[in-house]
């Protein structure tokens, strides 16, 4: 068995001796007999090589994205992370520490988190960022509760195109305080939010916040989003923004966003089957005392030198308990480290160039797919950056994707609410173009799509 528990000869006996007992049984005398258990059924211990072999055996049953021409996008990205990101994240001074409660011993992580907060502030055009939340969806959930602290009302409006998982998370955050998540319809041609609907809803004075995502759940950029704040007035606007898109898009703080949340996984964090992820949250300084999560502040040490500490802790659960702004304790610090290291390695110009290159590749793919009968690509007449929606006029999205898979193409994922009884608007697929996409891979997708639809045309 691994030597993770010290067992030097005589060691345990010496500890027992010091306590005047001869077995650890005495230490569990306070556990009533009726509460004791027998065997758990966990199996025998294994040596390290056996464990490696067993985990590898399971992982061999996966076929990672590298085995395919992969076009999986959405909130979780397969963007390449420079090796230096993992080299830093692998430093155990960072990963084997915990929340920096003792500031003096933990300046490294505190400074990193301060840099991370600063970066999200620069990207969003807002004033204050927290030190991370679990993921983009839970960050949106926290934003919902945050808005309710700023404004009266019972309804929170979200786009109908919002990914269903996020919608479901938001509904959970809304349910405790008895709030409602309502849907803003979209224009069928462009996917844009129906601003008349928003104006009317806000006019009824029961809306306490509105969320818009950039790009939206269809992958497209909604040109109406910058106009929202003029409709909302003092009703808070939450923008859920993809961080890479902010390298080329106007900072949401500059068009009136009061909160900007996002999923930060694409910045140096492997997709790892969906976790860990990284929730991003920024707001205006006047609202900081209502903000959720840990926040790092700059201060001085006893010698007057610059130092950093967790701050504004009277918002938090360990002080305020049931009155806290959030229950957050553990967040995603190490992922915040990956985010800031990634962004600094790539640099602001590099990020913008990367986004421009993805947009170029996405256009090539969309125009290739657009020429195929039975496919509308892109489905919406709206700008896009790396992701876009295609719609099938026959067959199901799942069948189509399965045919692509057999040709070694992961063609995206179906835009379908997976909850029982849910319905979807059409057979739609979100296609995402990763940085690794080559001209050949794009061509392969187009050919596979043509072949898949030719088959379904025959069988129809």
């Amino acid at each position, binding site marked *: 068995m691994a030597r993770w528990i010290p067992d030097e000869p005589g060691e345990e006996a010496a500890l027992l001796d010091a306590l005047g007992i001869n077995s650890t049984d005495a230490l569990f005398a306070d556990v009533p007999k009726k509460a004791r258990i027998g065997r758990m059924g966990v199996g025998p211990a294994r040596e390290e090589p056996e464990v490696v072999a067993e985990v590898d055996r399971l992982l061999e049953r996966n076929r990672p994205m590298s085995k395919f021409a992969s076009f999986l996008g959405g909130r979780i990205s397969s963007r390449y992370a420079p090796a230096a990101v993992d080299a830093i994240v692998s430093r155990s001074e960072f990963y084997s520490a915990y929340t920096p409660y003792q500031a003096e011993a933990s300046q490294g992580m505190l400074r990193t988190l301060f840099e991370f907060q600063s970066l999200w502030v620069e990207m969003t055009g807002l004033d204050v960022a927290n030190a991370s939340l679990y993921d983009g969806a839970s960050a949106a959930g926290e934003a919902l509760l945050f808005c309710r602290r700023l404004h009266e009302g019972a309804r929170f409006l979200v786009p109908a195109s919002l990914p269903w998982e996020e919608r479901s998370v938001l509904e959970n955050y809304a349910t405790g305080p008895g709030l409602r998540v309502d849907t803003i319809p979209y224009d069928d041609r462009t996917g844009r939010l129906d601003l008349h609907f928003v104006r009317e809803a806000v006019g009824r004075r029961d809306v306490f916040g509105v969320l818009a995502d950039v790009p939206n759940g269809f992958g497209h950029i909604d040109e109406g989003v910058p106009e929202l704040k003029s409709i909302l007035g003092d009703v808070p606007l939450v923008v859920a923004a993809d961080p890479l898109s902010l390298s080329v898009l106007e900072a949401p703080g500059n068009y009136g966003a009061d909160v900007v949340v996002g999923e930060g996984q694409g910045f140096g964090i492997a997709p790892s089957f969906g976790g860990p992820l990284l929730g991003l949250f920024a707001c205006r300084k006047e609202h900081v005392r209502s903000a959720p999560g840990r926040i790092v502040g700059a201060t001085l040490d006893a010698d007057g030198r610059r130092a950093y500490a967790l701050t504004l802790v009277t918002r938090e659960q360990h002080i305020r308990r049931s009155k806290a702004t959030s229950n957050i304790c553990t967040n995603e610090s190490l992922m915040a480290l990956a985010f800031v290291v990634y962004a600094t390695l790539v*640099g602001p110009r590099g990020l913008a160039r990367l986004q421009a290159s993805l947009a170029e590749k996405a256009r090539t793919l969309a125009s290739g797919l657009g020429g195929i009968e039975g496919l509308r690509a892109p489905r919406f007449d709206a700008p896009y950056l790396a992701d876009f929606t295609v719609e099938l006029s026959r067959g199901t999205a799942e069948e189509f994707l399965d045919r692509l898979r057999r040709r070694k193409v992961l063609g995206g994922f179906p835009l379908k609410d997976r909850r029982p009884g849910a319905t979807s608007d059409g057979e739609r697929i979100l296609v995402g173009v990763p940085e690794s996409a080559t001209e050949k891979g794009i061509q392969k997708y187009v050919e596979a799509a043509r072949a898949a639809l030719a088959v379904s045309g025959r069988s129809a």
Partner: protein
Amino acid sequence: MTFHQARWDEPPVWELSTSSSPEAPPVIPALPEKLRRKAAVRWPELSELEVVRHYTRLSQMNFGIDTGTYPLGSCTMKYNPKVTELLARRPGASNVHPYQPESTVQGSLELTWRLERLLSRITGLPEVSLQPAAGAHGEYAAMLMVRAYFRDRGELSERSEVLLPDTAHGTNPASAAMAGFTTREIRDKDGSVDLEELRRALSAKTACFMLTNPNTAGLFESEILEIAEAVHGAGALLYYDGANLNAILGVTHPGRMGFDVAHLNLHKTFSTPHGGGGPGAGVLAAAEKLGPYLPVPRVVKEGRKFRLDYERPKSIGKIKTAYGNFGLDLRAYAYILSLGEEGLRHVARRAVLNSNYAASRLGKLLPRPFRTLVKHEFVLSGAPLKEKGVRTLDLAKRLLDEGVHAPTVYFPAMVEESLMVELPETESKRELDGYIAAFERAVTDTPENLRAAPRSLSVTRVDEVRAAREPLLSWKDLRVASAKS
């Protein structure tokens, strides 16, 4: 041992780069002018080596388990085995998208399913979901499940109250409140639940009693079976905060103790790294009657194949994008495989042995407010330090100078000037004796030295009051502040 942490005069990352000509980003055709960013994000342009040096230097000013003993109570700062880091970075684990077709992710699904089965056996609760990203996230999801359960039974409007002991972690009342419950704290009796007090508080209004066992005073709640009976007798549910599961692995489990739903912290009991404050993983385990309310999707096995099941009409839905924190699930799976049944039992026995050994020694230096038989952690009171004009905070800072981390301080709150010490099973007797000696030097040091501590870290005492009074929360704030001065 003398300790000197690295003290780099390392400037913030933005001061490393001197060029500041934020050019406009490249024009993306079809993107309307009004949506375009006019200037690139304001952030430095550095070489890879400069970036690597910067963050390497910062890492050297950070204290982790690999640096030294880290006895934060209720955090279970045990060794994070290196082999688990290696495995989590395999491309077959990391380069897998959650929305790949199920046929291409059978390995991830099987590993998830296997880990769920193992955790079910360890907790004695049949239904498990790995979705929550952290302990508090798991608590919150569990409270949403409690809510959905009573809504289904038409009792939600009446059962609006969650009870907890005053020893509860702050996340418990915060999670219950977020899920829409009012909370009421039960006063402890000598650090444990006062059963009579609990019985008086239970009523037709009670939805749930949230309990950590062993609790944050390090005491096993010996009346747990009576507690469960009382809670269930009132028609309420019993929730297990698994933060302290490490102490009872293989001895008892939430199922046997009568809990209906539990969360576990893989980053505590099952050795996944704490990451400087996350990522964690906050597994949910539920009794049969609460199983249908767990988040979707659930992983199911059909023949030799695994798939994601969303057809759970009673489910609370999602609490996070995709599934759990798979990278951490994999580490925990490797950990459990390595230790096996006997190893996990040994974990609890050694952790409790370490704890009692250290408690008996440190109890000679500072008073212990509760009974002496403890589990994985114990509480001391720094109140006597006040006689010489110092506080627990000074002692904590002085400990840092010894090359060890401080215990959790000022929690639990019902003990004056409290210190909560947890020395997990991975600390050898040598390390324990070293910690005890360091503690003794610190406690017996002069008031002047205690107040002047720390002196051997990258900074001296950090002014946290100033940080809160004049919040400087980003580079932008620093720019504004320096423009003013």
